[in-house]
């Protein structure tokens, strides 16, 4: 994707000197300021920037929390309480970090479903999509490791349940779990290594984010129409158009984030985690953090241990095959009437699976206070089957048989048609590329 004839020209003696030695200003200029971006991106395309911001928030707040936190089984819980009560602004930093994790996942789910809706996973963006899955898996691991650190009851038993997933592996499973624990159960050794890895993984994520952005900059952004950029008329420079749009979205997102930090900081946590870990007493109802709930429901829907664990991991891994399962040449669901309905059904299915993961495994499904006449086990089995059918059966079949709506000729034409259609203003005169 080229943006006219623009190239970076160092202006003064220093930048000229630097440019011939380390062209870092050139890189930033071309990647962040001049980068030609489709002119029709909507607010669903601002989550990438929000996610980058959240990664920085988590790393900064995490680094300072680590100055006060003690990763030891006898001191971890108390050190977190000390952060809350005694450390200057400790409460703010901890609430920022704990709710920041939830915000991070809210943004990543919006980002992933945006990709699913507009077909961002399709050629030529398969590697971009795969790197995104790697980042998501690393986020899941980091979130889980971090949730263990306060060493409350949910931390301890959550860690026990999750590490026991590996004991499902035939033959070597038990040795692997003891290796993970460094003991015969979740123990001090486990806590210390989890802290070490929880500190490490965000930097690994940052590394993969660089690859993710690199892989984005080769083909360029997808857009709500899902059609390729045909020429300079279809794009605007990233700055100031999308820096402004991303910043505005970020401000709104930070307001939402602030509501939780300042007014409802424990809404997404679990009260049991304010009870110190007790290895002789399992809480009556163990639930993971909300962002794992749909996968937890898939795990519990299967009566066989190994199969349950395999299905749970497959529920994410199946995304990796999506670029090749979806055979449709049309990217955006805007022009795919059947896929579009499937997309909204999938959101509903994942939502209800999340509700099932939240509830205890016995009895009938409780839909916002109304008991439905269907057992949770059966419902979660039906929805698990549908979830996999969506990706493995419906997507390939629909992508081959669906008749897509006509796709606009170019981004520019579609944008101008919309403008002249609504306000009867000659769009070309307002077109920003004339500015260049």
């Amino acid at each position, binding site marked *: 994707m080229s943006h006219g004839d623009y190239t970076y020209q160092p202006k003064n003696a220093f930048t000229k000197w630097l440019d011939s030695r380390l062209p870092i200003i050139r890189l930033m200029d071309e990647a962040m300021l001049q980068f030609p971006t489709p002119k029709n991106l909507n607010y669903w395309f601002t989550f990438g920037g929000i996610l980058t911001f959240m990664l920085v928030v988590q790393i900064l707040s995490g680094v300072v929390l680590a100055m006060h936190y003690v990763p030891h089984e006898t001191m971890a819980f108390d050190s977190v309480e000390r952060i809350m009560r005694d450390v200057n602004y400790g409460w703010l930093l901890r609430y920022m970090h704990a709710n920041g994790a939830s915000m991070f996942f809210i943004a990543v789910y919006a980002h992933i479903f945006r990709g699913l809706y507009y077909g961002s996973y399709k050629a030529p963006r398969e590697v971009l999509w795969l790197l995104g899955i790697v980042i998501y898996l690393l986020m899941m691991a980091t979130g889980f490791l971090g949730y263990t650190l306060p060493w409350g009851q949910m931390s301890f038993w959550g860690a026990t349940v999750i590490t026991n*997933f590996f004991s499902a592996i035939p033959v070597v499973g038990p040795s692997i779990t003891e290796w993970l624990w*460094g003991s015969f159960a979740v123990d001090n050794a486990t806590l210390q290594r989890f802290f070490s890895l929880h500190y490490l993984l965000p930097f690994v994520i940052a590394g993969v984010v660089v690859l993710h952005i690199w892989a984005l900059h080769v083909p360029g952004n997808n857009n709500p129409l899902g059609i390729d950029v045909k020429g300079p008329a279809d794009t605007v420079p990233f700055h100031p158009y999308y820096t402004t749009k991303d910043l505005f979205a970020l401000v709104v997102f930070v307001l939402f984030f602030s509501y939780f930090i300042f007014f409802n900081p424990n809404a997404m946590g679990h009260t049991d985690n304010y009870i110190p870990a007790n*290895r002789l007493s399992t809480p009556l109802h163990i639930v993971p953090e909300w962002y794992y709930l749909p996968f937890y429901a898939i795990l519990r829907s299967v009566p066989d241990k190994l199969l349950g664990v395999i299905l749970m991991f497959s529920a994410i891994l199946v995304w990796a095959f999506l670029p090749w399962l979806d055979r449709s040449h049309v990217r955006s669901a805007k022009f795919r009437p059947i896929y579009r309905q499937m997309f909204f059904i999938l959101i509903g299915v994942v939502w209800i699976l999340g509700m099932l993961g939240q509830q205890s495994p016995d009895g009938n499904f409780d839909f916002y206070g109304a008991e439905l006449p269907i057992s949770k086990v059966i419902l979660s089995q039906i929805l698990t089957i549908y979830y996999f059918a969506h990706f493995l059966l419906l997507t390939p079949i629909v992508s081959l048989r669906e008749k897509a709506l006509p796709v606009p000729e170019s981004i520019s034409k579609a944008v101008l048609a919309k403008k002249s259609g609504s306000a009867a203003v000659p769009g070309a005169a307002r077109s920003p590329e004339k500015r260049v």
Partner: protein
Amino acid sequence: MHHRSSAAGLRHLCGIVPQDLLGLTHYFTKRIQDLRSGSRDCLRDDHFAIPDQFNPAREGALTLAHSTDNANVTRRDFIYVASSAATAIGATVALWPFIHQMNPAADTLALKEIEFDLAPLVPGQIVTVEWQKKPVFIRRRTPEEVKSAEDALMSDLKDPQADKDRVQRPEWLILVATCTHLGCIPSNLSKGDFGGWLCPCHGSHYDTSGRIRKGPAPKNLAVPPYAFLSDTKVLIGAEPKPAATAEHG
């Protein structure tokens, strides 16, 4: 002068396979070159001649100072193969301490045995003790509980094991209290459908012998090694003494 006396049995590999390090290096370097060039020359009987300076039968065989243009194998090839092999093996070996450090340390392994006084337990009572950082159930079973455990049909069991193979003395049931599904502690309060335990996390039911009867857990609750030191003292973590098992069996 060609070295072709040994390894006759391996000749199908292609030429003569030498049995010393220099000869082997030469052999594999040559094979890689053949593969790259698509050459099938090695089928020729005398192709795999080892150049004289690599032939241990010759004087000065280990002197690598001379070039070996006649065989197309240079000192650089030798150094390349030897150093990549050393790097690969070295990296693999160096990895092990980094992996093994995560396994239970010596002090963790040392927490092997605990002694427990059985005298205060009344029939029907269950206590939970900690052994190797894991909870362990000690249950003084009532005669009815023993009977129901012994009467269970093997065909009804998911992980078939007779009750007598799980206890040393029928009255005392000692189990690792870790659900074999995902590691929660089965509840003492809710005994489940089979009078044993019910795991609150994912609904596994265990019977009065700690065997899995219903739910997602794949195996029976594990029996730790233990030995009765006397009628009222048990040592958990000890290998059972022959006398203790003989008394039961």
